[in-house]
């Protein structure tokens, strides 16, 4: 703290300086933890399950490591289609009949927590991991 030398006069007593240090500490703590959170988010592990939810309900669960093609047919008369392809440990939507096509444009997902969402068809495809059942602890 070289640049603050000399300002510790009676007008700015030790107490004030300590309070400013407190603020630096609090800010620093928050920044550090947000960075840690970011790091964990970036380096989160690979998942092994693909969970398809339609309208908030689980529609199907598939292994990420068994290559397959899933026709997610939804809506009246099952006219709405998202073609989910699981291949080489990644999942992606090949084609979809939804108007915006955002889901088909989404990059393949493989890390846990990643998801592809098709808003028009109310389809959510999420990668999860089977061995962690959201630990429920009270500390």
């Amino acid at each position, binding site marked *: 703290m070289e640049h603050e030398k000399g300002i510790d006069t009676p007008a700015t007593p030790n107490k004030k300086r300590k309070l400013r240090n407190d603020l630096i500490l*609090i800010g620093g*703590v928050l920044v550090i*933890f*947000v960075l840690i*959170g970011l790091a964990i988010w970036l380096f989160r592990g690979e998942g092994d399950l693909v969970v398809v939810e339609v309208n908030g309900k689980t529609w199907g669960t598939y292994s990420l490591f068994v290559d397959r093609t899933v026709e997610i047919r939804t809506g009246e008369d099952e006219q709405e289609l998202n073609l989910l392809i699981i291949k080489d440990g990644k999942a992606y939507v090949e084609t979809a009949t939804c108007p915006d096509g955002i889901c088909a444009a989404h990059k393949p997902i493989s890390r846990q927590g990643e998801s592809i969402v098709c808003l028009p068809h109310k389809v959510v495809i999420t990668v999860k991991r089977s061995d962690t059942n959201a630990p429920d602890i009270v*500390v």
Partner: protein
Amino acid sequence: MKKGTQKLALLGLFTAIAMVLAYVEVLLPPLFSAVPGIKLGLPNIIIIFVLYRMGVKEAALVSLVRMVAVSLLFGNPMTFAYSLAGGALSLAAMALLRKLDFFSIIGVSVAGGVLHNVGQILLAMFVLRTAELGYYLIVLSITGTIAGIFIGLCGGLAVKRVKWG
């Protein structure tokens, strides 16, 4: 009164207050029920008070006896392990920062509050073998900071106003 006797009595008194505060905290409704584990850490008012007015050893003693007693009364061996992990890390940090004399009691309390959470989460990560709890740590560190400010303010008032001897 003999100094040693007085000290013993005071430590017992503070331990009792810390236990009552821990109990009061259990009675309070959860602040944010979606995320369990968010607490004010009321007993830390006493720990920080004893740390400032009597010393590190005394604070550690009060903290330890309180944890054992509260775990026996309301908890189980696992809650004691979590308490110990949090409490030990928290007190070590607070004692160090106090010695450095770089922060006011509020900063010391914030460090204590945050590291209390860090200690518990680290133990939980170790016990449950999952890294996902890292997310949880982010939430708890933010609430821990806020709680730490509050506890620091209370502790500071107590250190300033409570007189004995």
